[in-house]
């Protein structure tokens, strides 16, 4: 069991720890894809998740562009490697961006989208944002 990690991020922090953590976790997924991957977040956009601007993640996928690699591209790669992806988010229009991107690229199969689940804001962060439960895997509960 991986211990939980808590973030207290401020605008002046030198490091973007959340982004670094997401990068590490998606790199781990690409190295050893889970059978099923859950992404649970009230806010979901096609954000950059791997900093491949120096080509330093080409060993995970030689087809990645030498730029920041966005969530939808990493999910596409995981889908081609047989991972089933479950996305649970709020039913906002913007939250469909990632799923629409996967559909446009012909990767609809293998994605389960749940946009009507209840979301409790019981664990708001100290700055009033939302404490995202980033993702978890059925094989190995990461968080």
């Amino acid at each position, binding site marked *: 069991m*991986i*211990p*939980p*990690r808590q973030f207290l991020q401020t605008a002046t922090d*030198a*490091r973007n*720890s959340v982004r*670094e*953590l997401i*990068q*590490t*976790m998606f*790199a*781990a*997924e690409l*190295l*050893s*894809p889970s059978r099923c991957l859950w992404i649970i977040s009230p806010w979901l956009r096609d954000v950059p998740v791997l900093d491949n*601007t*120096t*080509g*330093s*993640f*080409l*060993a*995970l*996928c*030689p*087809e990645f562009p*030498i*730029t920041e690699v966005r969530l939808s591209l990493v999910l596409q790669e995981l889908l*081609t*490697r*047989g*991972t089933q992806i479950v996305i649970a988010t709020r039913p906002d229009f913007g939250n469909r961006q990632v799923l629409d991107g996967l559909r446009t690229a012909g990767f609809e199969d293998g994605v389960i989208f749940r946009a009507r689940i209840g979301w409790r804001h019981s664990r708001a962060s100290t700055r009033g944002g939302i404490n995202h439960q980033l993702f978890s895997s059925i094989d*190995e509960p*990461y968080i």
Partner: protein
Amino acid sequence: MTPLNIQQSSNSFLHWHTEIVPTDTGYQLDLPDGSRWLPIVRNIGIHSHLIGLPIEIRRFAVGATASIGQGQGAQIVRDVEFVKGTDGDDTPAAIGFVADSDGIEVNFTYPGRLFEIARRDSRLVYGLRVARFRHLVQHSTTLSGIANDFQRQWLAQAYLSTVTAEALRNKKTLEEVEATVAGEPSIVRIREVVDTILQWSDDSDDSTQSPPSGPPVRVAELLAILSQNSARDALHQASRTLWEDPSEQWESWLRERFKASLGAALLEAASYLCPHIDPGSLTVDLEALITEPSSSATKPAPDSDQIWLTESSVGGAGFVEDFMREYQNDPRRFFRLVDSALAPSDLETVSEDLRRLLAIVTSGTNDDLTIAFRAMRSTTTHNENVLALRRLRTELARRNILPTPTFMVSLNARLLRPGSTRELDAFLADALRLWDEAERRLGIDIDARVFALVKSEDASLDQLFGQQGWIPTGEAARTWRYSLLSGALWPRGSQIRTEALKISNPFERSVECDRLLVLTALEPPSRQIPLESPDWFEEISQVLVRNGTASLVHSDDRGDAVASALLRIAAEPIDSETLLVYARLIGIRREAGQLIVDLELPEAIQ
């Protein structure tokens, strides 16, 4: 007026020279502190119109080498030097052009004695021996006037293939076999290799000139050259390099190769840095004469050299200015891009992954990947095939074999080709093992075609490949087996390394690149900790706190161990004596069958 019977393969190449005249010393870019490139790259200077420092490029040809054939005769090679020529004036002359342009000047130092550095990696030495043999044949003065550049390439290929094939067949050393081949008046053995490996036919452009019976014109030319004692002596002299260790005599050639490889990596990194600019608009000049501005004329430091990346458009197309802007945003990024350019290419990864897959499916275990692999052969409908392919991709990914389009195409064409069987898998796995052993024994990279030629003598292949029912007989059977086997085996070693990193400059002779030569000369980016160590986390934490960077290394048979390690690194803080901090993942590499995870601790660097 050109005679009608001139062979279409007749050719001529100009002898180009380049002179670069900078306006003044270039604008010096900052180099990143702590970079492993600092001992090699001394400075990078920008010469551009925008900052008032354009360069003048003078490119001129002083002569040419022509190889001309008429009718069915052998080609005659002639060197031409341009002279003024009026009234018997033989003052040397040149033709060419002068252009103002922009350029990037990279001053670097060779990292010590390269022949000693090269010895550190046997993979590198195996490839270098073969490459040096080809180089010696290409530049042999004995062959001047006998063989043109193309014929020299074929001569080297035919001779090396013959010697290697004989050493494999007779289980002798290259030195023993070469003495026999060189001393043989008959060229039957070479002819056999030429016929099978080069597979020339009379469909060539010069077929109208070939005699009605007898070998194709190319083969006849090659055999005619080989029948000359001087040509055979040149090949014999060059062959010694195939079994000797890199020595001081190799140094200038190794430096040439190092410089070309570094230049190709710099060009690729510059192209990554400026993706909007056509990479073809930048030329790598390795041999240019630099006319230093008088203000900066200093004696060059020993072991130092220069590479110029110059814009091919007159006046410059903005590449150098774009490069300067992007470089200054993050100098460290440029050097990481150089590292990426030196990483294994897609072809190398596919070659290594096919080998690993074959080892897994012939290991005798009934694991998920083996079941998925075999299921691909038993599908009968399109739907079954789609489902089997999906399952195979999943299982490949779980064993860290990347199911990229290139890999899947190669897999389908080689291991899963129609008619392939488990028995063929076992045969190929055994062939790969023997291939490895043979390379270790002979100390050279063995061309896939030569290995296929030797293995094609094994008649048991008829049953393995002959599942479709038809099996040819006699001499045709061996050629048939060779064709099938050379399609099932895949190229590897220096053959694919040189394909990945290339320089194209129409004004210079081409030099082969080898990324391993540069990598072997470089210090590893950071200290490496094996994941197999029981205290790997504590060890890597200590290195990160002390140095700011560290790498975790693991055999990449399975990615799950590294994935678990990454999760631990993400979740478990490191005690930096004043703070509890988390390491940052900066990249993952694959090299020589290992997965290497590069980490840094920014708090330790700052």
